[in-house]
């Protein structure tokens, strides 16, 4: 990165919060602080919801995921449009009519205080950890490749977000997310165009896609019913539906986004905008990863993208082993490149059968390349340079730093930081609001002034910011960054969603039956998570189904005779 990059980066990430602070200056009521005001329209809500969900992981890790495993991850989003329609039709009207600040207030009105607190507690635990991961994930990568200090990166990213989120509440989060998302979409579109432009002139774009497809990178839809496959049409549609329903319907970080503004129409339009654009947006991000993969079929890639870790292992007495692996990898790369040119050349004289054989060899060489990368990682682990996150997380950032022109590099680093800030701001805003409204107000200071609760919400938002920075400072990831967030969500979301679906659709159950059903469902998901290896999206369905089955069963047995409310 040069001065121009730093100028673009600093100007982009500071200008948006400063503009937001100017727009939200002055004192506000509790309602304005937690729900924004009527000036927030559907486009802002739509972009805000999109930014909250996306986060830095989408733009940093997802291209790497496609580089490594293809674009099948897109199927995880198939349940989302359906879930958003259900949220629009069922959840939003009730939240808007009851004028709640948090989703969990509704549980209190429908059931009782303990069920409300359970829903809020599960949210706080899950999102408190997730906020830390959202800061840590880009910080560990950016600090590694740019030579920034990890702790400074974490404190800078987290500190800026804390300042403006505490100051402006929901309105500033919505305003900044709108502009941050515009920067993100423009930046990614330019990155896509540059990546296509940088592809080898030896291949047309169509031939590039054909070769990528033959190498197993473009399988977007898989109708397999194997439950052990992580990404299939069915797991995406059904498991993804429950994940998205829980996330958009019962996760305060999203609920607060679409309740901003206070109009049912604007909330619904903002959500339907997401239902329409989410799958295409994710497709282009994953396709960008595939294009980067094809770029590196002609341009020599490093055997290991996390070069700082690689260089430490080299200096740590493992240079001979790594040099041998690099030589083998270079050889595989040269063979692959020659084979791709042979099969895709317009003057190729290969028969269809010979072409099939060549493609098969290409896949074998690609598998061999992956094996050499795995062996390289094993050497790094032996060397005590154990990278906690997957090397694929470093693919896109390496491509940005090495292949993009100056200025654009700064913009794309700003994209990653904007994505971090927008996701963390939404989360902190929701964590502070939930703690203030669901715990502090009813349990600690029930009858204080409006101003008192605004101050409390600000203090609690700042406190959660410090918790997130604390989690980020001590976090070490065990899996790909995308997976870490989704797995964490899936483990908790099923039972939270079960609470809400029971509230909406099962009239003859009371708070105690639902409360204990949710506890049992959460325990069941923990046990399954610890003892089985089923695809994580299914936890959403299992947790939710367990609540919906157990709650009426408990109502008919243990809690038989206790009065069940008729529903709110």
């Amino acid at each position, binding site marked *: 990165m040069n001065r121009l990059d730093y100028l673009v980066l600093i100007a982009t990430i500071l200008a948006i919060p400063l503009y937001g602070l100017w727009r939200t200056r002055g004192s506000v009521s509790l309602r304005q602080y937690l729900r924004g005001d009527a000036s927030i329209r559907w486009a802002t809500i739509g972009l805000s919801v999109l930014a909250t969900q996306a986060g830095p992981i989408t733009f940093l890790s997802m291209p790497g995921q496609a580089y490594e495993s293809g674009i099948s991850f897109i199927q995880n989003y198939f349940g989302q449009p359906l879930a958003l329609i259900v949220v629009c039709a069922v959840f939003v009207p009730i939240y808007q009519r009851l004028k709640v600040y948090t989703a969990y207030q509704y549980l209190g009105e429908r059931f009782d205080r303990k069920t409300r607190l359970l829903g809020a507690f599960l949210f706080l635990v899950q999102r408190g950890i997730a906020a830390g991961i959202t800061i840590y994930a880009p910080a560990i990568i950016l600090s590694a490749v740019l030579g920034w200090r990890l702790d400074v990166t974490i404190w800078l990213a987290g500190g800026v977000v804390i300042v403006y989120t505490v100051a402006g509440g929901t309105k500033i989060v919505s305003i900044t997310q709108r502009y941050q998302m515009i920067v993100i979409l423009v930046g990614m579109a330019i990155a896509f165009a540059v990546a296509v432009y940088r592809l080898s002139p030896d291949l047309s774009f169509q031939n590039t896609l054909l070769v*990528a497809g033959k190498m197993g990178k473009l399988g977007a839809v898989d109708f397999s019913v194997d439950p052990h496959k992580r990404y299939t049409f069915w797991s995406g549609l059904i498991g993804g539906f429950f994940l998205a329903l829980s996330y958009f319907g019962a996760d305060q970080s999203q609920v607060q986004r679409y309740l901003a503004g206070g109009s049912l129409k604007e909330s619904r339009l903002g959500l339907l905008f997401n239902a*329409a654009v989410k799958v295409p947006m994710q497709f282009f991000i994953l396709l960008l990863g595939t294009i980067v993969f094809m770029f590196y079929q002609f341009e020599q890639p490093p055997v290991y993208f996390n070069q700082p870790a690689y260089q430490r292992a080299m200096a740590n007495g493992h240079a001979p082993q790594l040099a041998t692996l690099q030589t083998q990898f270079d050889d595989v790369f040269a063979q692959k490149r020659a084979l791709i040119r042979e099969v895709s050349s317009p003057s190729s004289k290969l028969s269809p059968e010979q072409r099939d054989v060549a493609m098969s060899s290409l896949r074998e060489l690609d598998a061999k390349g992956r094996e050499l990368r795995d062996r390289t990682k094993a050497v790094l682990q032996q060397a005590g340079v154990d990278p906690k996150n997957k090397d694929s997380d470093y693919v896109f950032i390496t491509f940005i730093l090495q292949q993009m022109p100056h200025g654009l590099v700064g913009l794309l680093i700003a994209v990653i930081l904007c994505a971090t800030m927008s996701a963390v701001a939404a989360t902190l805003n929701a964590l502070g609001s939930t703690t203030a409204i669901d715990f502090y107000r009813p349990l600690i200071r029930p009858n204080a002034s409006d101003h008192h609760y605004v101050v409390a919400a600000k203090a609690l938002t700042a406190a959660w910011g410090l918790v997130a920075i604390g989690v980020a400072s001590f976090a070490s990831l065990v899996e790909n960054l995308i997976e870490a967030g989704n797995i964490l969500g899936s483990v908790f979301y099923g039972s939270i969603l079960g609470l809400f679906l029971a509230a*909406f659709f099962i009239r003859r159950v009371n708070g105690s039956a639902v409360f204990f059903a949710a506890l049992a469902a959460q325990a069941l998901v923990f046990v399954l998570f610890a003892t089985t290896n089923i695809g994580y999206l299914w936890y959403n369905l299992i947790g939710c189904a367990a609540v919906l089955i157990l709650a009426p069963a408990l109502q008919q047995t243990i809690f038989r005779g206790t009065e069940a409310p008729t529903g709110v």
Partner: protein
Amino acid sequence: MNATDGEPESNGRSWRKAYSLVLSLFAVEVMLLYIFTVRFS
């Protein structure tokens, strides 16, 4: 109380049309992705 209480019927019809439109769009998106998969795999 349920989700549609207090919502005028004409308004409800408009939203049902909007939901159908979004569903149709999603179906087209999945179909295009399937065609993409078949074409390039």
